[in-house]
């Protein structure tokens, strides 16, 4: 029931998104005017789909990362994975400039995976009694990799490209330039099959093992999904922060952590949030655009502060 409501809400947003832009479009034009049809199919529809795919995938993998890190305040995009993805594309562009896109993409996914594994190794010894240490360490870790990215970009004279990967933006989305996000969507959707086992990890390694879960394999599968999604989003749109942090926390607060039940909601709300933020970014200063990452940065930071103060008991 609530799922249907959410679905209707997101569909409404999608319709709004399709008909907002510098060039006015009406539903009738799309069927009568070939120029309008072309605009719809090459720009408006891809942009809307990109927002939905990225939002849903980021929210889902944020939730998964929080289980793997056993901490609610970790988010892949800011905790090293996002920066590692940028490092990956940057290195690929510098070292093998002529390489096809899929090679760069694989390299970005690989560095993201390494970055995420590094984070888990780093936070494992931290005491569970101090839940705020983990996001703090994650933030510093992400900052360090970010600094390395900046250094490499500076040395390689690539600072202007860097902005593209560090600030998520949807204005460049066109047909033929966003399709990697479908891979992110598929990777996020595939976590549905391990959602039950990931929930069990949340009961602690001992309980999970005693129920017959292969903790290592499930963790590896989860990290793979997190890395693929983060890398694809960073490569195609740039980093979009907070979605993977705020949405899972909101959902957990209201519905709990039984992922097979909650992940559909997480996906819907994530998709709706990114799409709504993009609609705002397109309208508040029209005809200019505010990057979606900037809008979400503001909204997300406020939501996150509210969550932090509302929920001091849960680490």
């Amino acid at each position, binding site marked *: 029931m609530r799922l249907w409501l959410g679905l209707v809400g997101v569909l409404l947003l999608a319709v709004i998104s399709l008909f907002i832009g510098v060039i006015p479009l009406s539903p009738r034009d799309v069927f009568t005017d070939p120029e309008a049809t072309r605009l719809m199919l090459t720009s408006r529809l891809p942009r809307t789909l990109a927002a939905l795919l990225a939002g849903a995938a980021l929210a889902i993998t944020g939730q998964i990362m929080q*289980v793997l890190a*056993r901490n609610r305040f970790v988010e892949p995009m800011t905790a090293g994975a996002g920066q590692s993805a940028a490092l990956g594309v940057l290195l690929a562009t510098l070292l093998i400039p002529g390489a096809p896109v899929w090679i760069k993409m694989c390299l970005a996914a690989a560095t993201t995976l390494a970055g995420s594994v590094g984070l888990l190794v780093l936070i494992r010894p931290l005491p*569970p009694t101090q839940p705020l240490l983990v996001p703090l360490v994650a933030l510093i870790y992400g900052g360090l990799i970010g600094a390395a990215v900046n250094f490499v970009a500076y040395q390689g004279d690539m600072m202007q490209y860097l902005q593209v990967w560090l600030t998520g933006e949807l204005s460049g989305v066109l047909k033929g330039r966003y399709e990697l996000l479908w891979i992110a969507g598929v990777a996020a959707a595939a976590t549905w099959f391990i959602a*039950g*086992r990931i*929930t*069990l990890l*949340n*009961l*602690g390694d*001992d*309980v999970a*093992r*005693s*129920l*017959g*879960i*292969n903790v290592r394999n499930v963790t590896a599968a989860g990290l793979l999904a997190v890395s693929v999604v983060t890398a694809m989003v960073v490569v195609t749109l740039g980093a979009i922060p907070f979605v993977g942090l705020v949405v899972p926390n909101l959902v*957990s*607060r209201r519905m*709990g*952590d*039984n992922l*097979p039940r909650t992940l559909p909601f997480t996906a819907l709300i994530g998709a709706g949030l990114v799409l709504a933020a993009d609609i705002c970014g397109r309208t508040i200063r029209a005809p200019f655009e505010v990057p979606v990452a900037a809008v979400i940065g503001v909204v997300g930071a406020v939501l996150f502060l509210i969550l932090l103060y509302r929920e001091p*008991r*849960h*680490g």
Partner: protein
Amino acid sequence: MISIRGVKHSIQGKPILQDINLDLPRGGVTALIGPNGAGKSTLLSLIARLQPLGTGTIRVDALQIGSCSDAALARVLAIMPQSAQISARLRVGEAVMMGRYPWHRGRPGKRDGEIVEETLRLFSLTSLADRFLDEISGGQRQRAMVAMAYAQETDYLLLDEPLNNLDIAASRHLMRLLRQMADTGRKSIVIVLHDINYAAAFADRVVVMREGRIVADGAPGAVITPALMADVFETDAKVHLVDDRPVVLV
């Protein structure tokens, strides 16, 4: 039968368990008692393959710990670890359903639902089924954890200090339930108890540990004596017989 042969265990060079030989036949309630740090939790976690076994062998029926699969053992033996603290926001009913995982492997069926219902009823948790674990009392949460292990429907049930946080009524209720499961359900229950009087009142057999060794093993009446209190627990508490059961006066 759980059969433990020549088990030694050390952590970072420090010996924790030494020369453990123990047979726990099917059926009955075995209480594991001993001072803090005696190695009771370590022994349980070795039996439940939660820590790698170094020296010695442990078998649970036909399964050899260390070489049998986790999934196979999960259908034979359930454990509630001492540190069973769940940070996930799960509803009581959902948590108990997690205990069914070894059987449904992620696709709960009608039968799993029935068993969860029955377990909740048995542990007086039905009215709490939809409450989150972090929004109920410590004692209720403890009961939910035991219920989760019970719902796993295994022949062997290992419980590490399940009476923590429970008041006297809840403790007696739980111990009676376990007693009944052993008597009519043919379950084999190994339970670490803090309070020796509960061991004396409800267990068929008491195994006493101290400094990583088993120092006494037998029926409560034979094991729980003033001498044991003095030697193992280093206290001069008196022991009286009430209704043929030993009672430690505190």
